[in-house]
């Protein structure tokens, strides 16, 4: 497990990351969301030791993280691109060697991954000769070399077509199956919702929400929608409830006092037909918007 504790980073007067704490559990995908300038990239760079930490610490397997630990991590920086004018096979082997792999071993592994991403024939091509999508694939390969102990990926899906997204997801799932913790940032909330086991929301350098998607959706004040046979105007007079929306026979309420929803249902059945009574969980995008507002 990768644990981030009270991480803080200042640039002059500006506090880019302010006492941010969260966990990236082994074998789970943790999505890192937040607007531009929320501090996601700064946090990831601190985790990877690329940027100094002003306060706080990063723990890996319950110990303060070391350089060698970080070397075993796969990392994809935000703005990417390897060496534009070097053959992709050569530079991937180079990256693998920097991470401690032997030359022969590195070649085999790189070739294997290139083939998997449909680039087996293009090892001798310069990176700049490849399409953007393929360059992105090469970047992905670079981040999973050698077999990473953890993955820290900054916007790994940006610029990928749906097919590439799928093969990227497959690759990430393979790693989580082996117990590798994965932290990735993204602007694409639908993707995050689909992929992530856990979510960390950052706004203005602070952690504003964290947990599983279900936890987050359940975390707010419970909301219920009630659809009646007749007019729902009487709901306004019920105690312990805030009416958010009222439209003819339909009412949307927020529960202020525990059990108030039970009284509401009882009252509704007493008054006539109840067509629908349902708990309303906000969409991830709503939570995100509220949290980062």
């Amino acid at each position: 497990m990768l644990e981030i504790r009270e991480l803080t980073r200042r640039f002059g007067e500006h506090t880019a990351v302010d006492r941010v704490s969260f966990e990236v559990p082994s074998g789970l995908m943790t999505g890192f969301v937040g607007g531009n300038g929320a501090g996601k990239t700064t946090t990831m760079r601190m985790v990877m030791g690329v940027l100094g930490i002003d306060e706080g610490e990063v723990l890996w397997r319950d110990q303060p993280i070391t350089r060698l630990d970080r070397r075993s991590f796969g990392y994809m920086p935000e703005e990417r691109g390897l060496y534009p004018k070097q053959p992709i096979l050569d530079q991937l082997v180079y990256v693998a060697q920097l991470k401690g792999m032997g030359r022969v071993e590195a070649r085999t592994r790189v070739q294997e991954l290139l083939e998997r991403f449909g680039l087996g024939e293009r090892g001798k091509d310069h990176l700049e000769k490849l399409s953007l999508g393929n360059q992105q694939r090469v970047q992905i390969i670079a981040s999973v070399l050698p077999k990473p102990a953890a993955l820290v990926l900054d916007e790994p899906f940006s610029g990928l077509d749906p097919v590439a997204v799928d093969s990227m997801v497959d690759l990430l799932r393979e790693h989580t199956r082996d117990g590798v913790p994965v932290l990735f940032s993204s602007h694409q909330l639908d993707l995050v919702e689909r992929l992530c086991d856990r979510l960390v929301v950052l706004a203005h350098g602070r952690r504003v929400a964290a947990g599983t998607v279900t936890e987050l959706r359940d975390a707010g004040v419970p909301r219920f929608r009630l659809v009646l046979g007749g007019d729902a105007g009487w709901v306004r007079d019920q105690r312990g409830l805030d009416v958010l929306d009222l439209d003819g026979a339909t009412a949307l309420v927020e529960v202020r006092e525990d059990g108030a929803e039970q009284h509401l249902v009882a009252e509704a059945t007493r008054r006539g037909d109840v067509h629908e009574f349902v708990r309303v969980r906000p969409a991830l995008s709503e939570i995100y918007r509220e949290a980062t507002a």
Partner: protein
Amino acid sequence: MSTHDDRERAWLLVTRREVVSRITDKSFLFGTAFMVLLIAGFIGFTAWQEDRSEDATLAATPEAVAMATAIKDGAAQVDEDLDVTVLEVADREAAETALTGDEADAWLHEVDGVWQLTSESSTQDSLTAVAEAVVRQQVLADNAAGVGTTVEALEAGSTVSTDFLRGDAEKAAVADAVGFVFVFLFYFAALVFGMQLASSVIEEKQSRIVEIIAAAIPLRHLLAGKVLGNTALAVIQLLVYLVVGLIGLTFTPYKSFVPALSGPTAWFIGFFLAGFVALACLWAVAGSLASRTEDLQSTSTPLTMLMLVMFFGGLSLDGRGQVIASFVPPVSAVVMPKRILAGGVEWWEPLVALGLLAVFAAITVWVGERLYRRALLQTGGRVSLRQAWSAAE
């Protein structure tokens, strides 16, 4: 998989990548080949120029043939590259015909007791010089005989032997020329490889591969690998140029100087090495301060100025200024080899200069490493030296 040993050789991996990616680069290979051709061509041209002897035909009427023959025989002593042929003509008219018909280059004749050399329209510098010298000697001899003495007696004690001076002057000229080549090669290599190093630093910074590398190995290793790789390339290229140059020289009349040049050349390589390492670190800093290739122009300005100072200082300094500069790094990298070439340097002087240069290199490596490490991971615009120095990591 992650052992301590692996990390130890990280700089070696970087060095190898620098060398291999450059050596397989076509523009680098073509550039080097072009320079080799240029050097070989220049030396070849010089040799041809030196070897070329001039032929001159001197027309003379029968009464002047004796003097013309004296000129022909005496020519070799005055100008070894001039071959004089005597063409005997019947009279003035025949001589003029020979001149206009390009059969002769000049006509030697006596007018009112004064020897005159008439040519068609162009002056015959070499021939005139030879004729003047020989005629003067001849006439002096005749006149001396007329008053019962000899030229030797007249000139006794009046001449200064010029043999030694002449040889030394030639040596000085060669030292000057080779000195220029040393200064130029240093300037050229430091600029070309320095720029290359700086732009490869920017390339890594701009593409953010530096973050992947920084997460894997200490940045110190990255810098060391880049500096060493480029130094190795620069030295290899320099050796190629020097070897081509020295071998080329053996085919010219200057071949006798080659053994004498080997010592200074070896010193030059030593100074080049220390000087280049010192500057390479500064170039890496210039690269790390920029965020985009476009910024390099401004972040490298102080360095390009320094290069120019070294270039012109190396060429123009003499006397006391040269002696002082030959100990001041990094200018000493070019000035001291020049002094060694010219001769008259005490044995300890190059050692002290090289020692000072090495200390300077060590300081720039230390300062450069700190600046590079801190500036490299700062993104967004140019980083000032002050920011880089005081930045937190």
